[in-house]
């Protein structure tokens, strides 16, 4: 009994390590082909359909989520701030939260669901119907043909979608805060930009979006390439793609928060929005 448990744990550990090694090789080959493939102008034509799929088709969902999050934050936080007479600083809190954390993370999570799921399903189906093998047999590397364009689209467009989500989140918060909750417009924006949002916060959000996009692209393509057989295999690949991307986003976000905070304090010192 005890031996069986040890065997199972050992087997699982080996499996996880082998999976991680396989993923690392996949990432390595993607980066190798990213630079080698960029030299071939012919490969550039593969980018546009992916830009459309990852970027244009994600605009509605990212816009709705961004706008409503800004509005919800205004509704939820107003009474607490009003109770201590600080409602004019609501804009600072909402806008700071949106550009630094909620905008990038929620946009990335939405993309992990919409784009990541679609990529894993598409590549998983290609895998089980031998279309990926067909590409290899015809002397074309599927990493160049399928993975690199999707990865590049995710890396380049996640920050743009994040910026878009940020803008709509800010507008959403303002829409509730100023016209409905009657916070003075000037104070709302004044406190947002004095002690609230500065270039650093905006850039931090945008910078981490590059990494979130990269993680979504790589994880989804990897899961699709290694999906199990049949419809259930593809379904599992989609689920695993979302869950793994989500975990990667949360962990990357924590690392960014820690590093960015230390760097910010070292450069500017601590700045309070209530200062």
């Amino acid at each position: 009994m005890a031996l069986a448990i040890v065997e199972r744990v050992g087997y699982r550990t080996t499996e996880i390590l082998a999976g991680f090694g396989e993923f690392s090789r996949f990432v390595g080959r993607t980066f190798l082909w990213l630079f080698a493939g960029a030299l071939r102008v012919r490969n550039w034509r593969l980018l546009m359909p992916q830009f459309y799929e990852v970027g244009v088709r994600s605009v509605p969902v990212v816009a709705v989520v961004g706008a409503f999050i800004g509005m919800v934050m205004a509704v939820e936080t107003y009474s607490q701030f009003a109770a201590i007479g600080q409602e004019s600083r609501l804009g600072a809190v909402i806008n700071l939260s949106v550009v630094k954390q909620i905008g990038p993370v929620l946009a990335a999570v939405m993309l992990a669901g919409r784009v990541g799921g679609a990529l894993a399903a598409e590549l998983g189906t290609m895998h089980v119907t031998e279309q990926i093998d067909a590409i290899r047999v015809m002397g074309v590397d599927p990493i160049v043909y399928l993975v690199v364009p999707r990865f590049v689209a995710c890396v380049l467009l996640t920050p743009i979608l994040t910026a878009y989500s940020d803008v709509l989140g800010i507008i959403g918060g303002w829409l509730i805060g100023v016209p409905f909750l009657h916070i003075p417009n000037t104070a709302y924006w004044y406190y947002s930009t004095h002690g609230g949002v500065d270039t650093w916060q905006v850039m931090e959000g945008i910078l981490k979006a590059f990494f979130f996009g990269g993680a979504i692209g790589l994880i989804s393509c990897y899961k699709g390439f290694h999906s199990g057989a049949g419809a259930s295999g593809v379904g599992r690949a989609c689920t695993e793609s979302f869950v793994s991307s989500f975990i990667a986003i949360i962990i990357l976000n924590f690392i960014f928060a820690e590093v960015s905070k230390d760097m910010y304090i070292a450069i500017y010192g601590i700045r309070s929005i209530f200062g």
Partner: protein
Amino acid sequence: MSLIEFRNVHKRFGRQVVLNGVDLGINEGESLVIIGASGSGKSVMLKHMVGLLQPDEGEVWFDGKRIDQLAERKLMDVRVQFGFLFQMGALFDSMNVEDNVAFPLVEHTSKPKAEVSKIVDQKLGMVGLPEVRKKMPAELSGGQRKRVALARAIALDPRVILYDEPTTGLDPIRSDVINELILKLQRELKVTSVVVTHDMQSAFKVADRIVMLHEGKLMFDGTPEQIRTSENPVVKRFVQGEAGDEELAGLRGPSA
């Protein structure tokens, strides 16, 4: 010297041994059919020939060069000399027929669009489907899909065409069309053909030589005439399509 050669090839998946020391030479220009029961490793052999799978032990050679240890990048040069017809066609479902057939030409040549289009026409004409050019794979029947896949496989004028169960899932008439097509390509393009099948009618029609894979080893190697008259009971039962006691054991009740 053989064009394709297997030297003592072993392959297992987990605990299942699929190939257990296979030795086989395929000569240039011949039409070889590999037969064997479902799951006997026929498709696995085919995938070894183009480096889609690597043997656990043994060697695979193509045109005097060992290919089983080649890196993916170097395998590309070998693979363009092969055309591979997958069991279900493996057409790209996001592309129409024209783009599917043009795919290898676009990727490996710098021919102008008009010339690519002319070659696509010619290849679709060879498989007897000039009218489906603009259709999507989902709009094609099973037989049409395989013929389009064959047009794509011959787009680069390969030296070898590998057929993975080309008649599976087709009615007898459509199967015969595919068999005739294999013979036609063999005649017109002077290619080496390797066909994996368990359809004996198809095997007799297209083969110069037949090998039978059984329990990871080649059990038979000879001409269609020799396999017809073989006295080996396993070969005989397979050729005549008769299940033995072993296969029927599960169907018999416990009292039998």
